[in-house]
């Protein structure tokens, strides 16, 4: 399978603290990819560098064959990388529907389209994810799981080739986890490459075809979910030496 995303030797420092230390990973087109690691290992930093929220200090990021390391975040989104945020960041002055209209207007339909048309499209996405009845609710009145769904659906609205889900299931009940997992499986079935960052282990194991584990800014293990779980380095990273 062709590589959709190639991260080559990525490094990122915050003052004296090295968050990422020469991370290299390739994600294949259509793959279901898991990213795990203890808190502070650099998972979100890696995602922030890939999506363009942070500038990487060293290394390169190649997406769909194109070098994107110098591109601002919005241009990476327009090229097909979408992400959800660990702590949901809705556009609080807008309704659920309007939240989705933003990426629709700015990514999918750059040009001239009235809200009437994008509204219908947004409704369809909301129906697919189970938020259709909340379309006109102000986004600052949603429950936790509804917010997570909004995060995901807003990322989906940008019609990405690569969707990065950043701890979308943290703190959710088992049922809610299954709901979100089902959404991600469906997206992948439609051809979208998905990178899942999670602490909820059963979700990662069920979902991923391949998993890498980060610790202190370095990749310490890579392989199938089964092999990762049994890896002593991974166990040490999570449980302490």
């Amino acid at each position: 399978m062709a590589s959709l995303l190639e991260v080559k030797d990525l490094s990122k420092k915050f003052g004296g603290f090295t968050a990422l230390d020469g991370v290299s990973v390739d994600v294949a087109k259509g793959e279901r990819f898991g990213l795990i690691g203890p808190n502070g290992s650099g998972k979100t930093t890696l995602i922030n560098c890939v999506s363009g929220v942070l500038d990487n200090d060293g290394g390169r990021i190649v997406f769909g064959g194109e070098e994107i390391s110098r591109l601002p975040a919005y241009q990476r989104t327009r090229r097909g990388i979408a992400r959800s945020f660990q702590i949901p960041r809705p556009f609080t002055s807008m309704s659920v529907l309007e939240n989705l209209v933003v990426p629709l207007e700015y990514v999918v339909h750059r040009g001239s389209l009235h809200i009437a048309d994008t509204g219908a499209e947004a409704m369809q996405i909301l129906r697919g994810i189970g938020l259709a009845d909340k379309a006109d609710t102000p986004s600052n009145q949603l429950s936790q799981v509804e917010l997570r769904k909004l995060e995901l659906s807003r990322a989906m609205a940008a019609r990405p080739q690569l969707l990065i889900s950043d701890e979308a299931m943290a703190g959710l009940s088992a049922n809610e986890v299954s709901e979100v997992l089902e959404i991600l499986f469906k997206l992948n079935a439609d051809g979208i490459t998905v990178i899942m960052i999670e602490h909820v282990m059963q979700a990662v194991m069920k979902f991923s075809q391949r998993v890498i584990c980060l610790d202190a800014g370095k990749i310490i293990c890579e392989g199938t979910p089964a092999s990762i779980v049994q890896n002593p380095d991974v166990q040490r990273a999570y449980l302490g030496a």
Partner: protein
Amino acid sequence: MGAYATYVLAGYGVDPLLAGLLLMPVFFAFGLAVYQFYYTTFEGRGSDQGLRGIAFFFGVAFIVQVGLILAFGVDQRFVEADYIGTSIEFGEMRLPQRMLVAFGVALALTTTLALYLSRTFTGRAIKAVAQDEGALRLMGANPVRIKRWAFGIATATCALAGALLIIVGPVDPNLDRLYIGRTFCVVVLAGLGSMSGTLVAGLILGVAESIVLSTAGTAWAPAVAFGILLLVLGVRPAGLFGR
């Protein structure tokens, strides 16, 4: 406000420097109260909290300025003390004593603050709050209390600074615009978070203003601080010593 409070106390015969020191705890408490009010009213939900918070302080600053004008008039006010008006001679140079007093106090204050921020738990917590609030909460410190404490310290420092200001020269209510520029200039030039940097930056600004004063005249002096500020923002927003 610090300068004017010093002025009022000096009218009762209190030495201005002493007045400044006495005012510090008062202003500290005031600062705590203001921050508490600010926090309960503004931090929290909503997308335009930042706007409201800034507008609030702007409105308050404006009210204070107009209030001072109404209370004290637009004329300049000054204080008197033993060390104002006399100078020490070093060979060819004459150093005004009041400037030496201000310099000494400022140096002492900056050093104290720098030590406080690096050696005490609360001090380090203040530095930490700017870097990572979440982590600080995990370590058992309440970020809100820390920020409130820091604001109190800042307000108290302003009281002393105001006292020094009126010691060094006459003040009038329109001074705040000039000093906003100087304050922002020094802070941005130094780099956010660097105490020692403020000493260096303050020196640079002082020298720059003096040079401009003697070459281009008083008319251009107010623009120096803001000019340096804009230059720093454009070229190196992190400042000289910033993280």
